[in-house]
């Protein structure tokens, strides 16, 4: 009895996942992320991975708004920052527990998204981009100027609780172990959030709603003529996108060993993060930005960092000591980190936009789809 269920489940699984190359790819990818902690990586690496996973949610939400509904937002940091600041503010001013602030601040952020989205519907194209760009900058200026006991002015809010807090007063070794366990727990928690939100976003993006959004992107007048309430759908895209961006903002604040919110969460570079990730992966695909996040992480953490250090060493060896030292000291500006993309990535994105606008993950999946089609044709031929 149980076995037959298992068998049926297995056959559905093979038919729906294993036999479709792109799905197989994403399945394997999540499997890889799931078993990754078994290799006993360092605590720092786990933290970095978790950080990039939150950014992947952020980028996917941007992709949903821009890639599917075609409303270019250059200020997506607004949602990220509002959520981060509202969870920080709710905790530091009202002393709410962590698990209550997250739904509350996501709610606040969705309200903000509607508030922003509603006037934004009147403008489109470059004008929309400008308005969205303006909001986080206005907010940043206001936060900077408010008395520092409200939102901490330029220092932000520090000392916020994190997920899975560790006990105080442990011995050194016990504390190390507790910190490591905390990293692993946070890693899995964020992975779960990433999995669920990317699944929902993907389903939404390829559902009827998503297709309607794409139709608005392609031709708004024609969609209107077909009886679609374009205003409603565009506003909905804003709300959904704001929801997931807010989620990633909250996760970002409360992960790591100490929780804090800074003005950088509203800065222009923060708005540029999802653009970079999405362009790496492919616009309008939802899986693209997620893949982009990990590609970027891999490049930044493993390849480029060592490469730049090697280059710096080489420069020093061949006599350009000044240049070598310069590279070594400024390596963070060149390579960057999760929330502040380095110079190299910005340059790569510029080149990608110009030369290869489809993105890496999208091209790969298109290739796989072609293969799939060829195989199906072959099978059909055999049957005949």
């Amino acid at each position, binding site marked *: 009895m149980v076995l037959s269920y298992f068998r049926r489940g297995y056959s559905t699984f093979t038919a729906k996942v294993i036999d479709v190359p792109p799905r197989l790819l994403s399945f394997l990818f999540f499997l890889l992320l799931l078993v990754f902690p078994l290799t006993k990586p360092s605590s720092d690496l786990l933290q970095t991975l978790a950080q990039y996973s939150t950014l992947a949610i952020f980028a996917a939400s941007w992709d949903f708004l821009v890639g599917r509904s075609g409303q*270019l937002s250059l200020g997506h940091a607004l949602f990220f920052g509002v959520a981060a600041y509202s969870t920080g503010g709710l905790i530091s001013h009202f002393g709410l527990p962590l698990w209550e602030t997250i739904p509350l601040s996501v709610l606040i952020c969705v309200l903000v998204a509607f508030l922003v989205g509603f006037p934004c519907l009147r403008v489109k194209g470059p004008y929309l981009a*400008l308005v969205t760009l*303006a*909001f986080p900058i*206005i907010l940043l200026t206001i936060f900077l*100027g408010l008395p520092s006991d409200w939102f901490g002015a330029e220092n932000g809010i520090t000392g916020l609780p994190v997920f899975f807090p560790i006990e105080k007063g442990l011995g050194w070794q016990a504390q190390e172990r507790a910190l490591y366990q905390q990293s692993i727990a946070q890693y899995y928690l964020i992975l779960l959030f990433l999995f669920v939100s990317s699944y929902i976003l993907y389903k939404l993006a390829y559902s009827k709603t998503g297709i309607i959004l794409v139709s608005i992107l392609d031709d708004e007048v024609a969609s209107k003529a077909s009886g679609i309430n374009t205003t409603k759908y565009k506003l909905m895209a804003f709300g959904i996108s704001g929801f997931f961006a807010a989620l990633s903002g909250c996760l970002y604040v409360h992960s790591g060993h100490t929780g804090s919110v800074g003005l950088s969460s509203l800065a222009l570079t923060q708005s540029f993060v999802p653009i970079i990730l999405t362009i790496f992966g492919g616009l309008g695909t939802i899986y693209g930005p997620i893949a982009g996040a990990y590609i970027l992480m891999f490049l930044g953490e493993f390849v480029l960092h060592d490469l730049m250090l090697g280059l710096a060493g080489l420069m020093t060896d061949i006599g350009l000591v000044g240049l070598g030292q310069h590279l070594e000291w400024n390596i963070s500006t060149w390579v960057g980190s999760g929330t502040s993309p380095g110079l190299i990535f*910005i*340059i790569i994105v510029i080149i990608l936009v110009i030369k290869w*606008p489809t993105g890496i993950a999208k091209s790969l999946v298109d290739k796989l789809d072609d293969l799939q089609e060829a195989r199906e044709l072959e099978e059909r031929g055999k049957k005949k």
Partner: protein
Amino acid sequence: MIEDLIIYGLISGAVYSLLALGFTLIYGVADIVNMAHGAFYMLGAYMFYIFAVEYFSLEPFLAVILAVILIGFIGMIVYRVFIDPVLDDIVAIMVVTLGVALVFQQIIILHFTGSDIAINLLSGSVDILGLPVDYHRILAFVVSLVLFAVLWVFIRKSKIGGAMRAVAQDREAAMLMGINTERLYMLTMAISASFAALAGILIAAYTAANPQMWTSPLGMSFAIVVLGGLGSIKGSLVGAFIIGYAEKAVTIWTGMAYLEGATSFVVLVVVLLLKPAGLFGKRREMEE
């Protein structure tokens, strides 16, 4: 109080008009929303610093001219390398130019770190309406208005100006008449960038320069040209003075200097929501 407003608002308005003029010019002629406009402004101030203070110790006047010309060339290169390949896609242009702006910012941070630098052109001040106004501001005011007038005449009377207006009206028809649009766009970009650079030097002379200084003028240019109508030269002049006065009024009456940067963004949002076409609408000026 009211003297402060009149004089400082007038000076800000004049310099902002110079800043916004380049932005509106490149949008009106080539439909390029140049997010790197603020970066040219920032680079201008730093190039002047390099020429006049850090490396070459040139005469300030010579350093200004060199810096402005150099930024003009950089503008041309940015157009040729980054904007030209994606000219038809307005979204790609915005993303690419924003990326270019961030690259410039990071490069300046690499070399100068993030701290403020001071620029000195002239020293001393003169009393106007019982208010000491330093020579930097007067210089900025005069230079801005003169250059604005020069460009106005250039666009009205010269052959290249005529070509610019023609391309703004109808690109294809202008191409059929034998106008080399690519070269024209490059020239427009060079003019636009060098005007931004000059505004950067003039403003940094009485404030200070730092690598993050480009976001607020970018927002200001947007606000001004949106207020005046994207692509309208007359609009950018009027818009600049409105924004200049609005900023000063806000800072003087609230006494909070940090609100200055946000004012233009608020104006931008309000105008876009209430009257998206701006005061003078797109291209009316160029179409006459």
